[in-house]
């Protein structure tokens, strides 16, 4: 649940130049759109139906939603670009609150809440957002050893250069200690849609256009 106002660092820059250096190279890649959470001090994560207990999946979904809306405008993405867009979710913390809720139920010899079954995998929320947006490229979830955003961007570039995707929605989501509900105080994250410079500018589509 939202724990109310907490000591929270001011939103940082979306990516420092060092991190964006991962995009330098012959690939002609750029950041097509970006978003971050929290974007302001009173930012609140919308819950996702069927996801409970933890703020992690709502955080991932909201980052994706804000970033994709800025580029594609309305859901879903157009079919040509959607089919070639991968999702790479990187998190050092992972979903701590879901893991703790499962452990708590097991230790108390209680039955684990069935809804935790699918949300215990980071893939589940990626499936949620790819279904909404029609993103049918590869799905990758990682926990980088260091430099989470830099590593995620490097992985995205590798994925594109390898050929199975033309663009990658990179999401870095970190769960704070509170973590136990939408809007928990110290969660934070960044999303970037990395793709070809040649793709049309963001949000040029109008309603009804595919």
């Amino acid at each position, binding site marked *: 649940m939202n724990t109310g106002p907490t000591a929270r660092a001011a939103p940082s820059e979306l990516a420092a130049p060092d991190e964006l250096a991962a995009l330098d190279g012959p690939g002609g890649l750029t950041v097509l759109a970006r978003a971050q959470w929290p974007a302001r001090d009173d930012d609140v994560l919308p819950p996702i139906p069927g996801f409970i207990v933890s703020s992690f999946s709502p955080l991932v979904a909201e980052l994706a939603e804000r970033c994709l809306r800025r580029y594609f405008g309305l859901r879903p993405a157009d079919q040509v670009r959607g089919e070639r867009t991968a999702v790479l979710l990187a998190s050092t*913390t*992972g*979903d701590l609150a879901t893991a703790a809720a499962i*452990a708590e139920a097991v230790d108390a010899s209680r039955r684990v809440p069935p809804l935790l079954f699918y949300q215990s995998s980071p893939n589940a929320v990626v*499936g949620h957002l790819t279904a909404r947006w029609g993103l049918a490229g*590869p799905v990758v979830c990682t926990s980088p050893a260091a430099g989470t955003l830099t590593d995620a961007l490097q992985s995205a570039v590798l994925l594109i*250069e390898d050929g199975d995707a033309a663009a990658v929605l990179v999401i870095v989501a970190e769960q704070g200690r509170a973590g136990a509900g939408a809007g928990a105080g110290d969660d934070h994250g960044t999303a970037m849609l990395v793709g070809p410079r040649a793709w049309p500018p963001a949000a040029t589509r109008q309603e009804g256009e595919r």
Partner: protein
Amino acid sequence: MKDSARHVVITGLGAAAAAGRGTGALLDLVLAGEPAFSPVTRFAVTRCRVTVAAALPGSPVLAGELAAVIADACDAAAMSSRDRAGSPLLLALHSDAAAARDPRAGQAIGGLAAGMAGRCGLAGTLRTYTTACVASSTATADAAAMIVSGQADRVVVAAGYLVDPDSFGVFDAGRALATDGQLRPFSAGRRGMLLGDGVAAVVLESAATARQRGATVLAWLAGWGRAGDAYHVCRPRPDGTGLARAIGNALRRAQVGPQEIGYINASGSGTSFGDAAESAALHRAFGPAVRHIPVSSTKSVHGHALEASALLEFVGTVLALRSGQLPVNAGFLAPDDECELDLILGTPRPRRPGYALSLNAAFGGANTALLVGVA
């Protein structure tokens, strides 16, 4: 492709599963076709609907099992200390049950990854893949991409999962486990999956690097493909288009025709909708010819090792190709109209195909295809 100095070869393998430790035990298990499921004794399962899994004997510790399997793979690849020190490690792991109970952990996968490369004399752990049932096949594809792009000459990929009370409890609560105690891929009457211990490691390197140091090439990773379903949080797209695109990507990369595929180690998790979707994907990718491609899911004997399963199955596929015997699809009761495939039933099939596919599908519509070529 075959002549390219940067094509990716497999020079070392390591594995541990319910049948025991070592690649020999894994090959014996998948060829014998005797499911290794037995009552869980590692923790209490009294409140669970299902009470069996395929577990290593005793009380294995993941870090130790993983280090041993990585050492086996590096030894098999005849890697010197210097070779190891120049090889990065990619891992695939499930959430750590101990970290979930430690408020100071701050990391759901725990601290295992950080120390593993150092413990094994490797260059460093770049990242841990957590993409559920395609985590370790995704790591393998990334390792191959790193080699092809010239980012690395050699990469060690390792994955491990040991059945624990948290994952068992949540899969049981999600009604994902087969209540009849058998994992029956593509069979009528299948009731779901079962969990199993799995730890595996592979050494991938460029053909040129392997040649320079005189390493024995066990097989080559001819192709790899990945694609998403854009369909659902946990169910696969029923028409199999995502997995079919992953297969197509792997074949195109390798410049291998569908008619050259002589064995498919399927994802085959024993779920009603999952196996039907995979069968649809195979028909979509291969057309009517799929009826002549031998198919089995080795999960039927070693169970589902979650993040590690894809790598365990990949190792099993390489071992089978080299043995000239194709693994059995165990647990079969009767044909299912939704899964019209040439399943390998009863006994292993003697065959030496030039290419085999190892397929995996996961929650969130994540699909991978790894294409193995004989050396």
